[in-house]
């Protein structure tokens, strides 16, 4: 059975579809988070080097993955929107940005919490930390641009262009920061983890990552619904929905 993408690209039909999908994604996110936290706190063994403090990676690593991945997904939707002029793609991009910024912030915050007992410092100008910080700046810049533009159509396309410029720049930023870091910080801490990780730790991390995914989808769909209602407030179907 082929799914008619054009059918679901219409905000009115997508509104109905997303309404049905949100509980599924939301509840599976809750359940998987519970399982993931159980694995990470009760089943995963204590690390012999890092003690109990290592357990923060079960939140830190999925958050860091999500922060980068959401940016790419935003750029993808922005590119689709610019290429096909689909309103819904821009709205998806807008709906994802706050969650991406949130995950970036969580990754930085948990990184600091982990760094204090491990490195003895809240903040180290490590390559990954620094690029994560710059990623947060990029998210903030895009959201500030959206906030400053009142006309939704102009805002959509301007934001998509900026997201694309950022997406081209992210790898360049990452490698330049990495190089800068190795040049300036010869003998400092290394983030490279122990080569082998206990299987149960990896499973816990993966479960948490999938939970983060599902949460992101649920929240983004919820936000998209709000955006659709706001944009389509003058159409008949929204009026009918309100009167119901």
């Amino acid at each position: 059975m082929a799914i008619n993408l054009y059918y679901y690209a219409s905000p009115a039909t997508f509104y109905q579809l997303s309404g049905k999908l949100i509980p599924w994604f939301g509840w599976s996110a809750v359940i998987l988070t519970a399982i993931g936290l159980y694995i990470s706190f009760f089943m995963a063994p204590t690390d012999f080097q890092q003690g109990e403090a290592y357990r923060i990676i079960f939140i830190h690593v999925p958050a860091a993955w999500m922060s980068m991945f959401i940016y790419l997904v935003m750029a993808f939707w922005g590119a689709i929107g610019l290429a096909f002029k689909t309103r819904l793609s821009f709205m998806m991009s807008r709906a994802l940005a706050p969650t991406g910024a949130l995950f970036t912030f969580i990754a930085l915050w948990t990184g600091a919490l982990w760094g204090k007992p491990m490195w003895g410092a809240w903040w180290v100008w490590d390559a990954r930390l620094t690029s994560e910080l710059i990623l947060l700046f990029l998210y903030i810049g895009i959201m500030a641009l959206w906030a400053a533009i009142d006309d939704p159509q102009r805002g959509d396309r301007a934001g998509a262009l900026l997201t694309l410029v950022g997406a081209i720049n992210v790898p360049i930023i990452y490698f330049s920061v990495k190089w800068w870091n190795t040049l300036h910080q010869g003998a400092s801490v290394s983030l490279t983890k122990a080569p082998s990780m206990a299987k149960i730790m990896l499973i816990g991390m993966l479960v948490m990552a999938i939970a983060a995914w599902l949460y992101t989808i649920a929240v983004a769909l919820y936000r998209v619904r709000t955006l659709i209602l706001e944009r389509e407030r003058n159409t008949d179907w929204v009026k009918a929905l309100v009167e119901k």
Partner: protein
Amino acid sequence: MLSFLFTVIRRDLMLAARRRGDWLTSQFFFVMVASMFPLGIGPDPVTLKLIGPGVVWVSALLASLLSLPRLLAEDYRDGSLEQMLLTPQPPVLLALGKSLAHWLIYGIPLLIISPILGIQFALPAEAIAVLMLSLLIGTPILSLLGSVGAALTLGLRGSGVLLTLLILPLYVPVLIFGAGAVDAAMAGTGAESHLSLLGAILVLTLLVAPWIAAAALKVSIE
């Protein structure tokens, strides 16, 4: 095609030449910001030498940012930008010409002033030469990337601060390789690799930025 490009550049140069006060503000800003650092940190030449390349480069970034609103905003306000976009000439050339003019007007003077700042920070002569070279390659990148930001924020409220927020993260690689080249020259490891990478970024930006700036111009003027 090329004559259009030259016309755009010549027009901007002429406008800048007739408004010299405007033009000088940005250069004085560059000198003043850099001069604040020794006052805040202390006159110890060893420390100054250490932070010098970074401070001069950060000041150059800020001075370039400060002059970005003049890249397009004035033409937007008096309507001439719209007229230029209405001509049958490709908007990409308009964006490219505007960025090149911005570099000639605001980038080149930074390059010429930088040796004075180098002396303030007790940099050796070879390091100053590398500083100028890195600014020569780096400042056009700043103008090109800046044209994207200037086009995106055209006519928005508080566009100055917004522009900083959008563009500064994108300037990071330029800052790293620019200041890194001078550091490497002083450490004796040779600045060539930094300068080559800076050149690579320049080529990439030259290929991509005018197209995106042209698209952003079309989005902003409708």
